[in-house]
């Protein structure tokens, strides 16, 4: 009675914000950029999306505005790291802190207000869940079966070679960062609009960091991101359901289970990557390295 359709839906719903953010970061990292600001992008998306949905009464518009806000904030990161060649790790961390502070300030008027209801889509599941699921094969196809995807991966694997071939490394990366920001923003908005149904300061509560871990776990592959998000969402929901059902498992163990599972899988994945030769799961060659055309 624990593993029923309701639990499955709760699981998929809990996994959706992480899935969106992780898919976005897969695109960014495949282009060779490490953006640690996912948490900041998500919280900005959560507030912008909620504010827009509240103002217009349309959740669809809320998600659209969240995507724009996420992409907009990501542009700050893009300008700093791609134009001014700042350190990507430090800039990403700063972006997270900036997003948390910014939303704490502008979020005050939205506290204690309810979100408009999310319309149910096909099979009683809201459209964002379907969109998240649809994005997985689309992004996989885009990365692996299109010319644009090939260029993006080329830029990520070896930006000097891509540059020598005449591809615009900086432009490709800025586009990837914008796409990643938009997806992270939508993931954040899913938390405020569809899960918690209101805005509260700091509400993403670390979801962005989990998304970052899942990208590594996923081997920079969209299908892996789906598996990772479901595993994490599944363990989170399952532990609450087990508690509610009164199953005699130590609660502390259940509470740490999602994090434990993430660490465990990360260890397994990195072990596999160390011992397997030439597998598809290794990090993009130019990940995190700044690119300067004159060098």
């Amino acid at each position: 009675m624990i593993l029923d359709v309701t639990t499955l839906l709760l699981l998929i719903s809990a996994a959706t914000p992480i899935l969106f953010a992780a898919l976005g970061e897969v695109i960014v990292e495949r282009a060779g950029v490490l953006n640690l600001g996912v948490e900041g992008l998500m919280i900005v998306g959560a507030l912008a999306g909620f504010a827009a949905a509240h103002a217009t009464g349309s959740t669809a518009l809320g998600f659209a505005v969240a995507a724009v806000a996420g992409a907009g904030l990501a542009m700050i990161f893009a300008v700093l790291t791609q134009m001014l060649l700042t350190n990507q790790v430090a800039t990403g961390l700063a972006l997270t802190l900036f997003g948390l502070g910014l939303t704490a300030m502008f979020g005050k008027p939205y506290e204690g207000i309810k979100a408009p209801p999310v319309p149910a889509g096909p099979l009683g599941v809201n459209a964002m869940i379907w969109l998240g699921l649809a994005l997985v094969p689309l992004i996989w196809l885009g990365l692996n079966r299109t010319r644009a995807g090939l260029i993006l991966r080329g830029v990520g694997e070896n930006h000097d070679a891509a540059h020598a071939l005449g591809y615009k490394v900086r432009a490709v990366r800025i586009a990837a960062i914008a796409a990643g920001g938009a997806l992270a923003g939508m993931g954040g908005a899913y938390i405020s609009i569809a899960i918690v149904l209101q805005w509260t300061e700091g509400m993403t509560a670390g979801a962005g960091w989990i998304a970052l871990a899942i990208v590594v776990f996923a081997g920079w592959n969209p299908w892996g991101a789906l598996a990772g998000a479901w595993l994490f969402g599944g363990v989170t929901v399952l532990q609450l359901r087990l508690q509610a059902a009164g199953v005699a498992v130590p609660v502390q163990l259940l509470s740490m289970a999602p994090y434990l599972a993430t660490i465990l899988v990360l260890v397994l994945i990195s072990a596999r990557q160390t011992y397997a030769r030439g597998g598809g799961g290794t990090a993009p060659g130019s990940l995190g390295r700044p690119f300067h055309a004159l060098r």
Partner: protein
Amino acid sequence: MNRRTLLASAAALALPALLPGARARAQTPATPVPAGETLKVGFIYVGPVGDGGWSYQHDLGRKAIEAEYGDRVETTFIESVPEGADAERALTQLALAGNTLIFATSFGFMDAVINTARKFPNVKFEHATGYKRADNVATYDARFYEGRAVIGTIAGRMTKSNKIGYIGSFPIPEVIQGINSSFIHARKVNPGVEMKVVWAYSWFDPAKEADAAAALIAEGVDVILQHTDSTAPLAKAQEAGVIGFGQASDMANFKPTPRVSSIIDNWAPYYIRRVGQILDGTWTSHGVWLGIGDGEVEIGEITEAVPAEVKAEAEALKAQIASKAYHPFTGPLKKQDGSDWLAEGAVATDEELSSMNFFVEGIAAQIPS
């Protein structure tokens, strides 16, 4: 105050604590605050002021102080202070800024309050829901379990599935009292009722509270009680068409349903009284535990979603508790393991309540050890 005088006063405040024999000076006779001088009062909150629950209510108390004393007081607050080492930093910051009365408004600030109070013997501290006191540390608490008895009665009458859900924060006596009290009174009016408990291990985590509510609803629960601070469980209850109660604050945005009533913590009278005592120099350390009868615990409006006879029954119980004619923990009561706890007519002592670490008979869930 410029930086230099701030540092100087910091040194002056910190020095006595370091000198041997300084402890005797901690007991300086209280003197009234002279007219024309401003009393600075500081607050630390565990969540954001906008949580709409626990911290929001404490902030209403702070505003009540300003309204009551006007220019004679100046208040400041620091919100979202984590329980742990960072609380000590926040308290020290307030003490160094010249606040001579500081309210620390969460259980987990306890050790930080005691440590900071030792460093600042001339600053008075008030710690909510704690039990460690000193000459300059008083504690104050509210008998939330009295309110739980009233909403437990409503919950027992309102459930159709006979399953009540309870979102707990941490397994500490304050929360366990609430679970026991609401269960006892739900069972009293509805012998078939069951209680499902989920621990969130947080006072404030909206996404987790929402997921916990969803898990309870999936388990067939149709009335949700919460001992966490955000309105997320109510939003979830509304979506699922079940009912819940305002926690710590009225949460009136969710009237008339899912929020059918609420437990309100009204800290304002206590805060006004204690600030007044600092102003006239009569403040002393104490530990108080006030309830419905003292006006510190209030029951929010019972909405039209509740049948009139249930509302009357709940209000009668509230009146009995207020007049001390009835104690929510009155025997015969057994512990969860079937052993005897209170004999017929006996009532629990405050000591027993403040160290409560067991569920009463009939609750199936286990307290995490």
